[in-house]
C-alpha cells in the first residue's frame, strides 16, 4: 500500500529558485533576462592570468552564510551552496508547509555536470604540496556530484527519492524530466529538481581551454557569448543553479498552490558519435525533440518558443539549427528561438534547469527573452533567434533543448497553465 494519494498523472511547477550571473531569485533574474543584460566579465574567482581564456559569467556578491550555517558555509564547495540557495528560494516560492507525511513523499533530483571542482582543485594542491595526511576529510563528500541533492535533502528533511543525474550540459534538463516521471509513477508527490555548477576555478578554466571550447574574446567580455552570430568563437563558462518545485497536479490544486506551468513532454537520445563534438547530421538531437513533442501529445506547430542550447560554439549552433529544421519541418521558420547563454554563459549542469525556468516564465508572461550579441547571423543559422530585444507573444507550449558532452540530447516541453 502506498502511503500517499494515487498520482494524477500530471506534473506542475509550483516553485522556482535561481542563482545566476544576472540575478538571484526568480523575478530579478527574469527582469534582467528580458532586458538582455550581460553577466560576463573578467574572472575574479581565481588567478587565471596565464590562461588563454580569462573571462566567465560569475555569480556576483554570493555570500554562503546567507544560505548555510557558519561551519558549513566556510568549507563547503560553491556548487553545493548554489544548490541550497536555489532550493531554499524555490521552497519559499512554492508556499509549501512541510509535514512529516509530505517529507516522506518529497524527493530531490539535483545534478551537477562536474561536481565540487573547487574542493577537488584545492585538495589536490594540499596533497602534492603538504602530503596525504593533510588532505581534508571533506574532500570526498564535497566533491561528489550527488552531494548537492544530498545536502538539500538534509536541509529540509526530505525522505523521498534522491538521485543525481550526471549528463554534462544536459544534467539540469534530465533531472527535471526524471523528477516529473517519478511523480507521474507515484514515487513521490513533490520533488525539488534542477542542476548546479561552479567550475570557474583554475582546473575548470584550464581544462576547457585545453579542449579549445571557449571564447578567447578577453578584451570584450560583454560581447563574447554570441550564439548564432557569425563572429562567435566558442562558449563562455557560466555558473549558478536552477531548482524547481514539481508537484502532482491534484496535490497542487488541493492546496491552492500558485501554478507556473505543466511539464508535458520529455525526450532523450544519444549521439553515439564522439566524446565532445555533436554529430553534424543533427539526427539525434532532432529525435530528442520529436520524442518530447510526441510524449506531450501535441504537434510541432503547437510549439511557440524554443529556448535553444545555443552555446555560441562554431559547430554547435548550426547543428542545433539543423536539428530544429529536421524535427519541426517548415514550422522551424515560424517558431521563435533564443539563447539565454548569450547573457549568463554556459552554466553546464545548471543550464538545462535555468533555461527550462526561462521557458516557464516566457509561458507565464507571454514574452520571450532575446539573444544578446546577435549582430550578424551566421549563414547556417537562418531561424528567428529574437536578436537583442525581448518580444511579446501569446504562448501555449515551449521547448527547451540541452545537449551534453558524451552525446546526450535532452528536450523538454512545457505547457502554459491556464
Amino acid at each position, binding site marked *: 500500500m502506498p502511503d500517499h494519494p494515487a498520482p494524477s498523472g500530471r506534473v506542475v511547477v509550483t516553485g522556482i529558485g535561481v542563482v545566476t550571473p544576472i540575478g538571484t531569485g526568480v523575478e530579478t533574474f527574469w527582469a534582467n533576462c528580458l532586458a538582455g543584460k550581460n553577466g560576463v566579465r573578467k574572472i575574479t574567482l581565481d588567478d587565471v592570468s596565464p590562461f588563454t581564456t580569462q573571462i566567465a559569467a560569475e555569480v556576483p556578491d554570493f555570500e554562503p552564510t546567507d544560505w548555510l*550555517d*557558519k*561551519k*558549513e*558555509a*566556510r*568549507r563547503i564547495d560553491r556548487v553545493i551552496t548554489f544548490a541550497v540557495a536555489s532550493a531554499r528560494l524555490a521552497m519559499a516560492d512554492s508556499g509549501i508547509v512541510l509535514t512529516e507525511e509530505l517529507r516522506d513523499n518529497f524527493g530531490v533530483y539535483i545534478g551537477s555536470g562536474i561536481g565540487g571542482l573547487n574542493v577537488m582543485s584545492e585538495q589536490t594542491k594540499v596533497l602534492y604540496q603538504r602530503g596525504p595526511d*593533510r588532505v*581534508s*576529510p*571533506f574532500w570526498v*563528500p564535497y566533491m561528489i556530484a550527488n552531494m548537492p541533492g544530498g545536502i538539500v535533502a538534509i536541509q529540509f528533511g526530505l525522505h523521498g527519492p534522491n538521485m543525481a543525474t550526471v549528463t554534462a550540459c544536459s544534467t539540469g534538463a534530465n533531472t527535471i524530466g526524471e523528477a516529473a516521471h517519478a511523480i507521474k509513477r507515484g514515487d513521490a508527490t513533490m520533488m525539488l529538481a534542477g542542476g548546479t555548477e561552479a567550475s570557474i576555478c583554475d582546473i575548470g578554466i584550464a581544462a576547457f581551454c585545453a579542449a579549445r571550447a571557449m571564447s578567447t574574446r578577453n578584451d570584450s567580455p560583454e560581447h563574447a557569448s554570441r550564439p548564432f552570430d557569425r563572429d562567435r568563437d566558442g562558449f563562455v563558462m557560466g555558473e549558478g543553479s536552477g531548482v524547481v518545485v514539481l508537484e502532482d497536479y491534484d496535490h497542487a490544486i488541493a492546496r491552492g498552490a500558485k501554478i507556473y506551468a505543466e511539464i508535458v513532454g520529455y525526450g532523450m537520445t544519444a549521439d553515439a558519435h564522439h566524446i565532445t563534438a555533436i554529430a553534424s547530421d543533427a539526427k539525434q538531437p532532432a529525435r530528442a525533440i520529436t520524442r518530447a513533442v510526441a510524449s506531450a501529445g501535441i504537434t510541432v506547430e503547437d510549439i511557440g518558443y524554443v529556448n535553444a542550447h545555443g552555446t555560441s560554439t562554431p559547430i554547435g549552433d548550426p547543428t542545433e539549427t539543423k536539428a530544429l529544421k529536421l524535427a519541426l519541418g517548415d514550422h522551424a521558420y515560424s517558431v521563435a528561438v533564443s539563447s539565454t547563454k548569450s547573457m549568463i554563459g554556459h552554466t553546464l549542469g545548471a543550464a538545462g534547469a535555468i533555461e527550462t525556468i526561462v521557458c516557464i516564465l516566457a509561458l507565464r508572461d507571454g514574452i520571450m527573452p532575446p539573444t544578446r550579441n546577435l549582430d550578424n547571423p551566421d549563414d547556417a543559422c537562418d531561424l528567428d533567434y529574437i536578436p537583442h530585444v525581448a518580444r511579446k507573444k501569446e504562448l501555449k507550449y515551449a521547448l527547451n533543448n540541452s545537449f551534453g558532452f558524451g552525446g546526450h540530447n535532452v528536450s523538454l516541453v512545457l505547457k502554459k497553465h491556464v
Partner: protein
Amino acid sequence: MSEDILNRVTKVTVEELGVKAEEVTVAASFTEDLGADSLDVVELVMAFEDEFGIEIPDEDVSEIKTIGDVVNYIQKKSGE
C-alpha cells in the same frame, strides 16, 4: 593550564566549528557540546597540528574529548 594555549585552541575551534567563543569552555566536549561529528574532529585535529606545529597520532585522538584535554595534551607534548 596555559592561558596562551587555551586562547589558541579556542581561536582554532571557533574558526573550524563555527561556534561562539563563549561556548568554548574548558569542559566543553567537541562532539557533545560543540556539534562536531567524526569528520569535523579529523579536520579539527589537523588544524591543532598546524597551529602548534605538532603531530597528534590517531591513537591519541581517541583520548581527546574536551577543550581541556587538548590544552593538557599540547602542554605535555610541547614540554617533552
